[in-house]
């Protein structure tokens, strides 16, 4: 029995245009939780995909239980006892929970799949995870967080000795996260090795034994977790000290700009609040609380079933995002790939798309000069790293993509700017840049609403915090005075 | 299949009893689009009304053996007493016809016969008609002093026997007269496509002297192409339609072989009546002939 379950030496992986991994070494012991951190594009997922046979390494040596392995396939990796929970949800929405859990490993007799057994086994695993869902429910019907739990259940069901978790918590509620941590601890005591990737560094304190830090496809250091602290880790990640994680600025708030009265839409129920110029409101709450639905309703993307919205005292009748934009209310949506960007188009066209009314003449003919200038100014303002404004958005790193989602609105003078999870899954440095963008808006006397599931960020950035639960506002706090558990208490006030 | 064995004669009388007062006569053509079929139907309908027969017209939406066989099967299921059939393919339809006869349905062929024997056949002799077209072509060419040169044929497709016969009949005569015939273009009777092909012939062969279309669509294409090219090329075609008459009038076409579809339908139903009432149906094959339109 060798000391390490996995030994990687001098692993490199090149994608067209990017050197994702550059001579990386990585060692994994049995019974340890090995945290893996690094900025976006550091190469974490790529390395994990190489371990689990999704990509093949360009060079380097890969030892599993001491014996070297050639090119793997996902299936072979599975058989070798490696399971991975992917960063993006990877489930078949049309299949049932059980079918998803056993996908590719169906139990079958004489070529005929045994539904019964699979449902039974699935049920067991789900119970172990304390998830009360039926194995024969179709996945589509479950909320995102539950789907994520199913993905975890799927990984566990393989009884793998090596378990890779690539940002498993990014869509989980606090309660589910603690369930997950319990499971991780039991697995550990059974001698499983776990690789744990997360951008929520705070989490690591609960579980991590040691931490490896990656930057730009290179392995920087591996340390025992107890010999280090978050600030050190962060400085390794970004290659420099970050002075203040939350560069909040003070500026006195102006007159009331947005007034929401008894708004109802979908699960959003009787929501009222005011927003002032030069104010940042943070919308906190657990996943599924209805924050996205609320902001989408304000933006005209969800149909409003009751209540009213006033801008500078004037009652608005917003039925489509178009109306909202015309009124000066803009939204940077939650999921950049799905709702935020036309990834097949260039930066210029994405910026232009949101501002066509300003670069087109009466006849609806686009002025390329105006458009170019617009794109240039946006790229400069947001410090988007790109060779040219003609770069396809698809080829940008996550952080820079997010900047465009946010930034396409900034070149027009909006009255109210809404961000939904603007920092989800992007690295520390990029986050700070997004925070600075918010502060600029604040200084210009624009009203900012931003949804976030990361409490430190909400508390650090916003002047006021609205906590939502179950579609209602269950707390309206001054962030200076707010505390984590106070927010959490409001966020779980289900009986209202 | 058992019903094939049962002799037709045995079932005929009982079939006659089942179909109470008015007997049902079906006309099944190759498709319903060409004016040709519409005219056959007109003729058949006229006579059917005169004789108080219960008359239906059916056909596939496009020329297709399988679909025509199903049309026949459906007619049998619909208790037709007699079917006037224009066989899309003599072989393909025969089995279905045999089964129909076995079920006591009487068969008369119009326009195109199938291999399976039937009471009577009323049709144009397409080979002879083609030959006639060939003669006309040769006469016209000689008249305009062209004793040699290339001739292009635009036909429907290699699967339609009537038009293949017209092509071969034509080919024989014309080649004998010392003209060269180019690779035939098959354009499924589509006027526009036929016209493009005709242009191809005209542009691709300096010594092209004549063009020949084997059905309505191809003929319209030929006529239009000659008209547009402004060259003195002899155009001969088939069938009679308003468009073709126009092209004849302005000389783009020199002649068209007109069949007598109305007669086919009209006499066909008359024969049917005779057959259904066990009267004499006269000669087994009636050539409804062609008229040369100029």
């Amino acid at each position: 029995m060798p000391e390490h379950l996995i030994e990687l030496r001098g692993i490199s992986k090149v994608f067209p245009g990017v050197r994702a991994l550059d001579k990386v070494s990585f060692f994994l012991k049995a019974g340890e939780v090995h945290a893996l951190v690094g900025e976006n594009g550091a190469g974490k997922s790529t390395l994990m995909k190489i371990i689990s046979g999704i990509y093949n390494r360009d060079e380097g040596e890969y030892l599993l239980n001491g014996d070297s392995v050639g090119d793997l396939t996902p299936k072979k990796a599975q058989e070798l006892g490696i399971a991975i929970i992917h960063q993006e949800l990877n489930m078949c929405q049309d299949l049932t929970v059980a079918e998803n859990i056993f996908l590719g490993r169906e139990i079958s007799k004489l070529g005929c799949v045994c539904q019964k057994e699979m449902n039974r086994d699935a049920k067991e695993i789900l119970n172990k995870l304390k998830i009360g869902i039926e194995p024969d429910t179709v996945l589509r019907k479950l909320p995102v967080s539950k789907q994520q739990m199913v993905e975890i259940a799927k990984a566990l069901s393989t009884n793998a000795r090596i378990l890779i978790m690539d940002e498993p918590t990014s869509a989980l509620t606090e309660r589910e996260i603690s369930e997950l941590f319990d499971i991780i601890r039991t697995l550990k005591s059974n001698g499983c090795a776990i690789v744990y990737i997360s951008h929520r560094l705070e989490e690591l304190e609960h579980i991590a034994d040691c931490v490896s830090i990656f930057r730009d496809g290179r392995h920087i250091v591996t340390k025992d977790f107890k010999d280090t602290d978050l600030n050190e880790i962060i400085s390794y990640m970004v290659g420099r000290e970050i002075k203040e994680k939350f560069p909040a600025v003070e500026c006195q708030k102006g007159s009331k700009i947005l007034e929401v009265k008894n708004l109802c839409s979908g699960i959003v129920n009787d929501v009222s609040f005011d927003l002032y110029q030069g104010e940042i409101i943070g919308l906190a709450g657990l996943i599924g609380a209805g924050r996205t639905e609320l902001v989408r309703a304000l933006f005209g993307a969800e149909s409003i079933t009751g209540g009213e919205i006033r801008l500078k005292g004037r009652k608005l009748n917003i039925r489509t995002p178009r109306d909202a934009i015309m009124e000066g209310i803009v939204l940077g949506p939650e999921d950049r790939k799905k709702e935020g960007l036309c990834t097949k188009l260039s930066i210029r066209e994405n910026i232009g798309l949101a501002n066509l009314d300003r670069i087109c003449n009466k006849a609806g003919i686009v002025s390329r000069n105006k458009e170019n200038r617009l794109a240039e100014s946006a790229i400069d303002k947001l410090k988007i790293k790109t060779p040219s404004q003609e770069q396809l958005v698809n080829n940008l790193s996550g952080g820079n993509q997010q900047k465009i989602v946010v930034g396409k609105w900034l070149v027009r003078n909006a009255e109210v700017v809404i961000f939904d999870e603007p920092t989800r899954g992007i690295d520390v440095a990029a986050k700070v840049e997004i925070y600075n963008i918010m502060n600029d808006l604040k200084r210009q006397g624009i009203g900012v609403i931003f949804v976030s599931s990361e409490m430190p960020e909400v508390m650090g950035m916003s002047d006021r915090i609205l906590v939502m639960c179950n579609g209602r506002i269950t707390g309206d706090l001054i962030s200076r005075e707010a505390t984590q558990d106070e927010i959490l208490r409001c966020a779980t006030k289900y009986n209202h | 299949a058992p019903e094939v064995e049962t002799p037709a004669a045995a079932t005929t009388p009982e079939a006659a009893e089942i179909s109470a007062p008015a007997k049902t006569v079906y006309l099944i053509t190759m498709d319903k689009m060409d004016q040709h079929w519409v005219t056959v139907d007109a003729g058949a309908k006229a006579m059917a009304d005169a004789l108080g027969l219960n008359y239906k017209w059916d056909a596939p939406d496009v020329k297709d053996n399988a679909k025509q066989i199903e049309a026949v099967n459906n007619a049998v299921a619909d208790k037709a007493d007699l079917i006037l059939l224009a066989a899309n393919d003599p072989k393909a339809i025969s089995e279905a016809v045999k089964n129909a006869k076995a079920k006591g349905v009487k068969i008369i062929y119009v326009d195109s016969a199938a291999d399976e024997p039937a009471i009577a056949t009323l049709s144009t002799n397409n080979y002879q008609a083609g030959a006639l077209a060939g003669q006309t072509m040769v006469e016209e060419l000689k008249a305009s002093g062209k004793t040699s040169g290339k001739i292009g044929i635009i036909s429907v497709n290699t699967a339609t026997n009537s038009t293949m016969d017209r092509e071969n009949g034509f080919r024989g005569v014309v080649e004998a007269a010392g003209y060269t015939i180019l690779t035939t273009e098959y354009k499924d009777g589509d006027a526009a496509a036929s016209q493009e092909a005709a242009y191809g012939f005209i542009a691709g062969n300096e010594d092209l002297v004549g063009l020949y279309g084997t059905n309505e669509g191809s003929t319209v294409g030929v006529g239009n192409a000659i008209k547009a090219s402004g060259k003195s090329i002899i155009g001969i075609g088939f069938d009679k339609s308003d468009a073709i008459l126009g092209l004849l009038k302005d000389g783009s076409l020199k002649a068209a072989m007109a069949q007598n579809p109305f007669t086919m339908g009209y006499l066909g139903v008359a024969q049917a009546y005779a057959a259904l009432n066990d009267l004499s149906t006269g000669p087994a094959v009636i050539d409804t002939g062609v008229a040369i339109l100029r």
Partner: protein
Amino acid sequence: MQKREYNFNGLLRQTVSIRGMGQVISVSVALIIMTIVFGIINPLFFSKDNMTNLLRQVVPIMIIGMGQSFVLITGGIDLSIGSVAGMSSMISATLMTTGHMNPWLAAFITIAACCAVGLINGFLVSRTKLPAFIATLGTMIIARGIAQLSNGNMNTDGIPEAAKAFKDLFYYGDTFGLYNPIWIGLILFIIFNFILSRTRTGRHTYAIGSNYEAAKLSGVNVILAETKVYIFSAFLAGIVGLMLTAQSGMGTMSAGTSYELNAVAASVIGGVSTMGGQGLLFGTVIGSFIWGVLNNGLQFAGAPLALRNLVIGVVVIISVLIDRVARSGKFDFRKALKSK
């Protein structure tokens, strides 16, 4: 809870699963109503003759529809199957006539050839990642070309008397009072429905149609799974081609024209989603029956050809609309009109 679990198991649970069953039920009702209406208009519609005959007419579109459904469920489409049927008809007939080959051997070789086309489709789609629509559009044209080449751009002569058994098996003969093609259709349905609903292959078919990446990452051999469905559809198209040969007793170059679209229509009417991931073969069967009953019934009702097209076109659209409603739970037409 567990109890409920078990009652739902097995084939029942399979078919009552959400995968488009709602649609299947609603169209089944529609089918029954249609049948009754046509029966009233012309009583002969119900005659044994017409019924058996109708069944026989539906079989080809149903068989090809099943193949198309497999492909649609993976999120693809196979435009080539119509031409493949034509190719099958021509190759088999040519081998029997000019090739003087034993009918069964000829049939076997033909099916092999068709599967080869399926393999090519599968390769183009699964490996070179061409959009299915384009890849199969290409093979559609090619297969038609082969059909035309195989007997030198001529339909074949009549297949020899020796092939009578072949003709009977694939079209004219009957067993227990039902035409053989009906039995063939039934058997193929049982086999392929089993494959789709009860085997790994079936599971993978749904999986890649639902989320290709996820299936791949779960260790499903996506390349193989995707290739399979195109081979299935080509195979079934080949069978239909043999039926056409038997029916006409000869090879027809234009045979099977536009079957591919009829097959899509049948599948979609039966609730198979063109987006992939959803559909039941039983639905496809019902779909093809609606198709067949419409054509046959409208003729019996003496409706003109043009009208039939209108009706069928409308039915296709309506049935998918129903599907939408069924799935989205509701469909507020006024909202649809207003919605921006």
